[in-house]
């Protein structure tokens, strides 16, 4: 398990951890290659791929133009013909520009063709609010990956998971949407150096044990939920914080077991609350643990609005630590 291993490991930033995973997997398997806007010479607009181009060259690290349908579609074609592309869209939002390629070709090609072909690829998707990049560069769209069968969906919330989940994604024979939070690129944490360090898909991790209520949080909401939990700890409210780490596959066992213990659940994500991943998780919790629930399952997510371009205003749209604490406090009081 990542966390156990992680604690003795050297400290590394989330972006560097991703960089390490890419370099290690490209060294391990020469079928692995990269493509995207500015991922080569520049090392990525967020610096995530620095040094990869220098080590592996222009053949395996390809800078593209403004052609999102090409980036994803060509990756699909290259994946079904013997290579393992790790494509990057500069912003996760751009999945919608290549929607046919992501949600139809990547997700369905194998099935439509009788399982005779497979599409082993990873689509790297810098996601979430960054500060001033606005309505079309700040979205959290992971829920879409759950609604289109055929994809797997990972969203690491720590540097260790960023590395371990990406390595697992690259080795997975299925197409994977890899949502890396661009607001967390500089966050540091212990990251194992072992080149065989992998974080399995479909295994949620309990970030904090507690008995008062279960908080299911993803991405940037994991640290915020943990902060909220610390604050409430002082009030004698002990939140159990669970990070699913992958939404497809989704580890409901761990979540349900926790809810059966606490009797209360709050699901928190940065994505728009309406029809977000939290709706599915909440619906499944009450399907599986209805008679163990002492209160309705609650959800926090972004408001039904756009992310304003203003860096000051955008934080008002997504859940903050205080909001999480307030909601949990109220939920526990029911």
């Amino acid at each position, binding site marked *: 398990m990542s966390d156990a291993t992680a604690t003795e490991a050297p400290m590394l930033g989330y972006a560097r951890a991703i960089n390490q995973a890419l370099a290690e997997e490209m060294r391990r398997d020469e079928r692995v290659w990269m493509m995207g806007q500015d991922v080569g010479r520049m090392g990525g607009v967020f610096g995530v791929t620095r040094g990869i181009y220098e080590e592996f060259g222009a053949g395996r690290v*390809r800078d593209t133009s403004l052609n999102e349908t090409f980036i994803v579609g060509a990756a699909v074609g290259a994946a079904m013909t013997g*290579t393992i592309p790790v494509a990057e869209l500069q912003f996760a939002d751009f999945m919608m520009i290549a929607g046919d390629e992501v949600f139809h070709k990547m997700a369905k090609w194998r099935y439509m063709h009788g399982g005779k072909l497979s599409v082993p690829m990873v689509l790297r998707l810098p996601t979430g609010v960054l500060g001033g990049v606005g309505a079309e560069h700040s979205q959290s769209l992971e829920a879409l990956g759950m609604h289109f069968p055929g994809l797997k969906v990972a969203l690491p919330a720590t540097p260790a998971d960023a590395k371990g989940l990406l390595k697992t994604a690259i080795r997975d024979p299925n197409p994977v949407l890899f949502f890396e939070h661009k607001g967390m690129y500089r966050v540091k944490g212990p990251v194992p150096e072992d080149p065989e360090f992998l974080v399995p898909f479909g295994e949620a991790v309990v970030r904090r044990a507690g008995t008062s209520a279960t908080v299911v949080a993803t991405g940037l909401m994991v640290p915020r939920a943990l902060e909220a939990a610390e604050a409430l700890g002082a009030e004698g409210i002990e939140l159990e914080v669970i990070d699913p780490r992958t939404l497809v596959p989704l580890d409901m066992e761990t979540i349900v077991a926790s809810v059966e213990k606490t009797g209360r659940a709050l699901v928190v994500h940065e994505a728009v609350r309406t029809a977000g991943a939290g709706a599915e998780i909440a619906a499944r919790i009450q399907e599986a643990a209805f008679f163990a629930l002492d209160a309705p399952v609650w959800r926090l997510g972004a408001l039904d609005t756009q992310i304003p371009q203003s860096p000051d205003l955008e934080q008002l749209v997504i859940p903050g630590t205080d909001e999480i604490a307030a909601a949990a406090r109220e939920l526990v009081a029911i």
Partner: protein
Amino acid sequence: MNELDLYRNVSRIRALELLLHRYIEEHGFGGFWHPGLGQEGIQAGAVAALREDDYLFYAHRGLGYALAKGMSPVTLLADLFGRTGGSVGGKGGGTVHFVDPELGVLGQGGTVGSNFVLGAGAGISAQMLGTDKVVAIFFGDGAAARGTFHEAALTASVWKLPLVWICENNGWAISVPIEAQSPTANIADRAAAYGVPGVIVDGQDALAVREATLEAVDRARAGEGPTLIEAKTTRIRGHYEGDKQSYREDLGEGLEVPRDPLAILRERAAIPAAEADRIDEEARAEAEAALAEVLAMPEPDPDVVTEGVWV
């Protein structure tokens, strides 16, 4: 492939076309069948220029592409009728998906024009793995309007990907005539924008199509990049079998093929009438036998609907 074999493939495709027309008129059809009647010369001619291991992304206009690449009519009809013997295990239906990795038949997207970007990707892997394989991508005049063509063509040209784009310009995108879709007289006129050769051939002349494609394939294999081939033809039938074509004045409801590729090939390859007739006869027999075999196949097991979503 010699002229006789080329003629045979054109004839085999034609036999399937006519047989399916008759069958659907009598019995109807569950999915959608997009007849390729009259376009057989392009499909057989272009594929004749490919190596067995070259990649093929076909279009929706019939079964000719995959048949010419070597897939059996039994497999293709089984896919068409959604039977177990098909290459997609009974999930098929209509002219959309069939596949044969060994023969490089990599499939098709239901969203017309999605082949452009996927095909470019197959070209990247051929380039990276050094297999010197070439990717043939078929599409129609309508599909050429997709942004995916533009995005793929620009980068494919700069990266010198081993692609051959074969446009079957039959003058129509369902009910919309080419004049309403293209500001230029020819689709090939767009090639210059991508710095690639644009070649126009008579789509009714299978030999001409083969020649043009051979040149493009050699160019691609030599690392000189993509070529855009436009084969002029006519859509004889409706967009799909059953389309009344109310929007159309230029052609009737018939089955006659003006400038029939079979007739032109008989003449250009100087194939003795008796021999050609015999080949046509064999082709009809093959098609009928294949259909009979397929109709006798069991329906797929219901469990297949959830198989193959994930590995």
